């Protein structure tokens, strides 16, 4: 445009000059000497103007071309693969071109820098995403529920166990108020209360921990949970437990302790029960001893009675301790079991030998299976003997005088099992009490009237037969018409 304008201007100037020269020639032939002088001056001025216009036109043309070249050069600088070589100016515009080149180079460097930063950020973003997914996977592997709560009481993060426990979707719960998502008031109170605690030290543990009962699935069964809320400290804190500053976020870990609690309660109940059972004979021993010391037994018969009671209670205490230790060893798995081929008929004969005097004293007919069958089990001889002895002892104890106790061995060849039955004509066990007779310290009501007992004999039978020897034990009874206790064991492989 500039070129065409300047050329047009030059051409117009030349044209005007030629027209003027034409007119001048015409005038020259007609003009006076003064008019000729003016004409000459005019022609000279026009000539000079035209020349100047032409020169300007040429210069503009060249400038335009130079600028075009410069534009093309600058334009090319930004393209990938451009050499970046310096611009050779034909019009002496080196300063301008060098300045443009420098600016362009700076821009290029900046672009390179930004590209490198962008790549770095991309890498960090990928790593961060990987780390985030890894952390999520780690959290989801926890059985404990983990919830991260921000300062606005919104859920920032929750693992799968938390979602399962409180019935929410992990991803949908994010940034939602904890009060809306978690339907558990004790937990919400704990989080609020935790905000009032200044640090994560041991001293504040009691205020940061909460045990609560919760029915997550609406089944009506309350389960027990233990929740611990910990402030998330900034990573640069040297000692997280005492650091006072906080990110405002809190991690709450919720662990189900129902089984632990039940086990602890059972243990506590057991210890309490044992304490009671041990103190009961001790009470008798102490009371009767004091009566003797204070001279409250006025005659020899009374004194002998007291001595007898003390002796009996001492024996009871001793049996109780023995049985407890035995049961405890069996339950904890530390009992030493010496298995061997044991003849059951021989065990029956041994028990009969021991129990006959007691039976005879009550005029009870005690009969054992005398058939010399070859029935063996692979078992601990002493334990099987103890189990049978306990059953026969009970049968004799709780059978009134002139009753009968039978010990029978029954072989079930098809099942490869042997059953040992102890049947009595005693007071029996009421139907409602049958499910409890093998429990520790349980004593049938009417049995307590008839004789002393530890309440552990049948439990020991159960432990020996079922836990140690993988057998079974059961009872059938008609109230006041006697009972039949049966234990069953697998027959030894060498037999049959």
């Amino acid at each position, binding site marked *: 445009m500039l070129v065409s304008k300047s050329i047009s201007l030059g051409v117009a100037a030349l044209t005007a000059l030629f027209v003027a020269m034409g007119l001048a020639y015409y005038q020259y032939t007609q003009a006076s000497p003064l008019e000729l002088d003016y004409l000459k001056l005019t022609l000279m001025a026009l000539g000079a103007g035209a020349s100047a216009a032409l020169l300007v036109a040429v210069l503009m043309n060249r400038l335009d071309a130079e600028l075009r070249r410069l534009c093309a050069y600058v334009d090319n600088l930004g393209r990938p693969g451009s050499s970046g070589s310096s611009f050779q100016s034909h019009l002496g515009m080196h300063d301008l071109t060098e300045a443009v080149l420098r600016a362009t180079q700076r821009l290029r460097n900046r672009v390179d820098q930004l590209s490198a930063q962008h790549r770095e950020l991309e890498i960090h973003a990928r790593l961060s995403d990987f780390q985030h997914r890894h952390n999520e996977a780690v959290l989801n592997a926890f059985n404990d529920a983990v919830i991260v709560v921000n300062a606005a009481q919104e859920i920032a993060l929750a693992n799968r166990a938390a979602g399962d426990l409180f019935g929410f979707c992990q991803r949908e719960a994010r940034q939602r108020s904890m009060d809306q998502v978690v339907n558990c008031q004790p937990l919400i109170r704990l989080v609020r209360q935790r905000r009032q605690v200044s640090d994560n030290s041991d001293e504040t543990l009691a205020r940061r921990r909460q045990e609560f009962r919760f029915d997550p699935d609406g089944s009506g069964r309350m389960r027990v949970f233990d929740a611990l809320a910990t402030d998330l400290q900034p990573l640069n804190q040297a000692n997280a437990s005492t650091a006072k500053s906080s990110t405002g976020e809190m991690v709450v870990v919720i662990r189900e302790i129902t089984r632990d609690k039940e086990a602890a309660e059972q243990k506590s109940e057991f210890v*309490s029960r044992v*304490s*009671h*059972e*041990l*103190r*009961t004979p*001790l*009470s*008798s*021993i*102490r*009371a*009767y001893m*004091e*009566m003797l010391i*204070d001279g*409250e037994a006025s005659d020899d018969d009374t004194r002998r009675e007291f001595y007898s*009671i003390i002796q009996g*209670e001492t024996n009871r205490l001793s049996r109780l301790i023995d049985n407890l230790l035995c049961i405890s060893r069996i339950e904890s798995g530390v009992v030493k079991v010496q298995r061997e081929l044991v003849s059951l008929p021989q065990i029956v004969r041994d028990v009969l030998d021991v129990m006959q005097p007691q039976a005879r004293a009550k005029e009870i007919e005690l009969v054992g299976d005398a058939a010399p069958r070859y029935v063996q089990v692979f078992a601990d001889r002493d334990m099987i003997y103890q189990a049978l002895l306990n059953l026969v002892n009970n049968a004799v104890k709780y059978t009134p005088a002139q009753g009968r106790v039978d010990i029978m061995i029954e072989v079930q060849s098809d099942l490869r099992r042997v059953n040992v039955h102890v049947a009595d004509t005693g007071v029996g066990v009421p139907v409602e009490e049958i499910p409890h007779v093998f429990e520790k310290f349980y*004593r049938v*009501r009417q049995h*307590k*009237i008839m004789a002393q007992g530890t309440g552990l004999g049948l439990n020991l039978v159960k432990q020996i037969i079922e836990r140690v020897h993988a057998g079974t034990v059961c009872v059938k009874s008609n109230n006041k018409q006697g009972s039949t206790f049966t234990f069953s064991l697998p027959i030894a492989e060498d037999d049959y």
Partner: protein
Amino acid sequence: MDDAEKNKVLIVDDEAHIRHVMKLKLENAGFEVLLAEDGEQALEIAIQHLPSLVITDYQMPYMDGLTLCAMLRGREETRCIPCMILTARGLHLDQEEFNQSNIASVMSKPFSPREILDCVKQLIDGQPSSQEPDS
């Protein structure tokens, strides 16, 4: 209540030896002793005989001592009978629970018959342990 009735003590325990030794101790001290081996039986005897004091074991089958005391307190005719609980398990009541119940004393097993007698005298007669109750 006349003097003869004041001296009735009901002993409730599922252990025969305990019932026997306490009976002996209290009878030797001039008290009339009634025996029961469980809470249900004790309730019937208490309603019928209105003893001056009930001594009961804490842990008994079917109805424990605490429940027995509550049932005695729940009945008009027996609500004023003080109760003493003997426990091998450790039973702790705070002052408010004591104030709101008819339980006058809790003693641990194994117990001393002497101490039982002292406590019985205090609860029935309000007298120091050296004094004998009226027979």
